[in-house]
């Protein structure tokens, strides 16, 4: 039997990515809790494992052990479809991610498009979760999630497009290769506005504070995942962190030169370092700012980010044409 090489590669890549996502989510949750602890001048997780490193694993084990509870009046199919739908697309999102010069799950020349397209699925899952749980708070959360995600997709796309215009393609690996190893050779220098817009929109897309409105704890109890127990909640949780990795990974590749490093030290280590630097700043934002209000969120998007991204794109196109 003749198995196409490409298929084998994808299967291996998905397995590797599953491990990558699992390990990184665990580390990331720990990093977040530790960082939050240090910012608030307390130790953070401490008991399980050295410096509490295994705390997330213990929490995951606890979540797995919990009863999966379907609330009365909920639509069981939609209700349980939602967490799966939130989690599974993550692997596809990571496939075209250029971790290193050769370490890419699948080199597609439309990699960027693939990521952006599948990232949209997340909205559907939040929507189903909110609708399926037959809870008014969840419903409000879902409504927020949808309008927020749809709105912020646009500046996100526009800022990414500006980069695509410059490199003339949507292949992430190619975009990385075009940038140099030194910070002044990064796209960040050429496209600072696009970077800021991308990052703000990415925080909003992943529902992170200060844009965590769909799950605004003090307003909507827990928003769309109010009714989820056990691993149902766990999958949403995992998906949130995995998505953070994706958006920050894309940002690192597009703006920060991906795996390129100075003195020819190219390699996945640079990618990971840049990725975690971005993740840390996301965590930093979360533990510093209060939550924005919903109408302000949309105002920020439609009145500021959108026009700015638009202008930025036009200017880029104009300069590229010259």
């Amino acid at each position: 039997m003749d198995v196409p090489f490409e298929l084998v590669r994808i299967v291996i890549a998905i397995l590797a990515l599953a491990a990558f996502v699992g390990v990184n989510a665990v580390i990331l949750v720990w990093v977040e809790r530790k960082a939050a602890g240090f910012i608030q001048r307390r130790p953070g997780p401490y008991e399980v494992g050295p410096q509490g490193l295994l705390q997330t694993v213990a929490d995951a084990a606890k979540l797995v052990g919990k009863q999966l509870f379907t609330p009365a009046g909920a639509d069981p199919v939609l209700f349980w479809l939602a967490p799966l739908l939130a989690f599974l697309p993550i692997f596809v999102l990571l496939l075209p991610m250029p971790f290193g010069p050769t370490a890419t799950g699948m080199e597609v020349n439309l990699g960027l498009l693939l990521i952006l397209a599948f990232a949209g699925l997340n909205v559907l899952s939040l929507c189903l979760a909110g609708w399926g749980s037959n809870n008014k708070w969840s419903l409000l959360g879902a409504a927020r999630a949808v309008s927020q995600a749809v709105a912020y997709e646009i500046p996100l796309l526009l800022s990414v497009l500006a980069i695509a215009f410059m490199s003339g393609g949507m292949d992430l690996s190619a975009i990385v290769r075009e940038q140099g190893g030194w910070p002044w050779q990064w796209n960040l220098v050429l496209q600072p506005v696009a970077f800021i817009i991308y990052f703000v929109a990415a925080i909003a897309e992943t529902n992170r504070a200060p844009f965590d409105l769909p799950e605004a704890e003090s307003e909507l109890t827990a928003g769309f995942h109010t009714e989820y127990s056990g691993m149902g909640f766990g999958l949403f949780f995992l998906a949130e962190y995995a998505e953070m990795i994706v958006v920050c990974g894309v940002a690192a590749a597009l703006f920060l030169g991906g795996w390129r490093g100075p003195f020819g030290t190219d390699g996945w280590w640079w990618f990971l370092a840049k990725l975690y630097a971005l993740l840390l700043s996301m965590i930093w934002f979360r533990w510093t700012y209060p939550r924005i209000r919903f109408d302000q969120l949309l105002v920020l998007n439609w009145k500021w980010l959108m026009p700015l991204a638009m202008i930025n794109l036009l200017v880029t196109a104009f300069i590229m044409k010259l």
Partner: protein
Amino acid sequence: MSAPTSITEKITRLWSLIVGLKVTGKYFTKPQVTLHYPRKTLDDENLLTYRGHIELVGLPKKPGTPKCISCGMCQAVCPSNCITLTKRKPPKPTEAEKKAMEEAEARGEKVKKPSAPKDPASFNLDYTLCSLCGCCVENCPVESIRFSNDIYLAGTDPNAFRYDLLQRLKEQAAAKPGAQKAQAASGGETGEGEA
């Protein structure tokens, strides 16, 4: 959000976000202010002023016996009815004594009946009801009650907080006779006496 009017105002507004990051960033690197209980605990200076549940104070000479004279004041004054104490019954005279007493009475002499020992037969505290108000401590005529500083209390059963204070006093006296004596000597009216 009121629309920012001028460019400078917009910039100061955005700058405020950076200032916030600076503050949290600064504290990120500062040492922690929490104590890692149970590996570390607070120093005594902070613990000894804490008023936990009440306990009995022993006699300076006999630390296992409370100073209490069973007057019942604490029981009556407690707003939450958490103290139950019973007095001792007078000891039953033996046959010979009884006889002697009867004879004496018949002779028309004044008889001194044996009085009950002053210390209580039982002294129970239901800490689940106590409001730690201090009424009992302040009103004990012989200063036989004081606040303990048992700060690390935890239990899964309400019965764990129904104390037999006499028992507790005996145990304390047995555990550290020297310390108990010192405490009894310095034990003032309220818990701060020990601080």
